[in-house]
């Protein structure tokens, strides 16, 4: 379960201050598939990043499994991310210098997992997204949908409890988008993985358990 309480995020530049999130409260119980919608610039990514511990709130607390993470040091937070969280980005963010299977192995590199075991788990995750035959390819040899499936394999290879997806279908056509959505739905249904997904697509949002709408840094539903 992730819970954020009274979270405010302000970006300060020399001249202006942008309030990206204002006094936000949100709680995502384990096993839920939650979607977040809202106009561009309303703070969706900011919210997701704060929940994913890759950005810090200006005010307020983030709790993971009931424990507030304030007071944890950088190493412990990195550990949390490694073991509890998996990220999927709109622009995939694969490492182009590494092969598909090496990309998928990435989260396991920062755990005590032997090389053979790493490879086995990565291939298993690739099988799960239907890309076994592309393991030795490099990211720039793949289509957008395939890239996103590799990104999903990377997000699930470490068996995280929570997956955070920022517009995972935003760069894909509707057919490929549906494929990605199906994988996520299956993941949620079969493994009980908690998923928080930002989307612009009402159709996708309808398939999830709950929808939260943001506007100007505040929840409107």
């Amino acid at each position: 379960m992730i819970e954020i309480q009274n979270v405010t995020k302000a970006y300060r530049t020399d001249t202006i201050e942008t309030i990206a999130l204002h006094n936000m409260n949100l709680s995502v119980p384990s096993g839920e598939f939650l979607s977040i919608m809202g106009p561009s610039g309303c703070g969706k990514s900011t919210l997701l990043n704060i929940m994913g511990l890759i950005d810090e709130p200006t005010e307020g607390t983030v709790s993971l499994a009931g424990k507030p993470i304030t007071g944890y040091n950088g190493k412990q937070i990195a550990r949390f991310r490694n073991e509890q969280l998996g990220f999927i980005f709109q622009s995939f963010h694969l490492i182009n210098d590494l092969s598909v299977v090496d990309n998928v192995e990435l989260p396991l590199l920062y755990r005590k997992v032997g090389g053979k075991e790493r490879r086995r788990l990565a291939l298993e995750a690739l099988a799960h997204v239907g890309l076994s035959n592309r393991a030795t390819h490099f990211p720039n040899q793949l289509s957008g949908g395939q890239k996103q499936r590799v990104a999903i394999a990377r997000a699930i290879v470490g068996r995280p409890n929570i997956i955070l997806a920022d517009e995972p279908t935003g760069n894909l056509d509707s057919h490929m988008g549906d494929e990605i959505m199906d994988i996520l739905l299956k993941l949620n249904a079969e493994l009980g993985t908690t998923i928080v997904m930002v989307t612009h697509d009402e159709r996708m949002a309808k398939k999830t358990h709950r929808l939260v709408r943001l506007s100007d840094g505040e929840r409107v539903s």
Partner: protein
Amino acid sequence: MFKNYLLLSLKVLKRKPFYTFISLFGISFTLMILMLLTSLFDATLGDNQPLTHRDRLVIVPMLERTRTETDTIMKIDTLATSYDTTYTYEDDIVSTSNGPMSYKFVTENLTKLEEAEHYAFWNDGYHQDGYLDGRKFSFGAYYVNAGYWDVFDFKFLHGSRLNEQDDEGANKVVVITDKAAKTYFGEATASVIGQEMQLGAETFRVRGIVARPLSDSPMFAGDVFFPITRVDQREIDSDDVSGGFGAAFLTSTSGRREALKNELTFLGDNYDMSGVEFYDKMRLFNATFYEGYARGILQEEDGSKALRLLFIPVVLLILLFVALPLLNLVNLNISRVYERKAEIGVRKAFGANGSDILYQFIFENLVLTFIGGVIGVLLAIALISYVNTNDLLGITRLSYSYEVFFYFLVVIVLFGFLSGILPAYRMSRTNVADSLR
């Protein structure tokens, strides 16, 4: 974990062949140039035989004779030797002549110096042809006294040096370089010692074989060394003060060099010129080894001034030469790390902590600079041996010093390490969300 870092580095480098090539090339090239420079420096100025005692050495490269006439009528110089120059100075006509000294001058005046422990005299003005089985070889001939072998500690590969008895008896013996031995006998082994060599019209017995010196100093650039008394009889009989001989001395300690130099200057300034034709004044040039070296390069007669003139720019130039490629390496490494901002963000999002990122980049830089360094060392070795076997620098040959190679490798890897650590440290601390935006 280190194995992972290493594998990862190799993977990344393999995927970026162009970048890898450029950085490797830069590192290797820098290293190679640096090593060539040091070995050139070492060959000419280093502590090599036959100049192990360089810090006690005083050289008399030449003497200068002048004639000053307070005469307003231009004189036509009838002495047409190549060194002579005549020019008017205010109302005086000054004629000067520079050059090496005669046999009589050096043996009568330069063998009783208070501060000199050893005396070396040599004549390098001749070539001797060697004959064997109808073939002919040309050798640079040096006629040297016994003390020459004390002043210049040649490295004897086989046999021994020439001595006083050889000078007194004008014995028909020679010391030859390993190169001359190979040219004439086809080998430079102990079996050559005692064999005969047909040189000019006479036959000489080989007494010793020396390793050819690394540098091309005119003090010892010969192939075949004869006893001094074997030189052309006219050189020995000449009553002139100028002739074909150079001289060098060893003092007991390096601190005594100034005293010897003063002694030589005094000797020249007070020389009785009544026996010398035409000229009325003498100057005996003298220099320590480094002064002599700087003098030779700058054509500046005052040795210590030449040394100052040469030293500062050379040091600056070398510093610049070393600094530029190293700065370039640092720059390359910095931009390389920044280029991979997104990758760092992704790694951190999936659980890498700051030190994981730090180690990864330091490791990559180390691997890269190490490979580049090794290539550089190999290139330098190949180039040095190419230069040496083909005599591209004349008689000067570059020295190999594996120790120096090793230190260079350490320095370059250290730079790889240092140049990676700062950008990697900064990147390892950036906000993940920012690097993924």
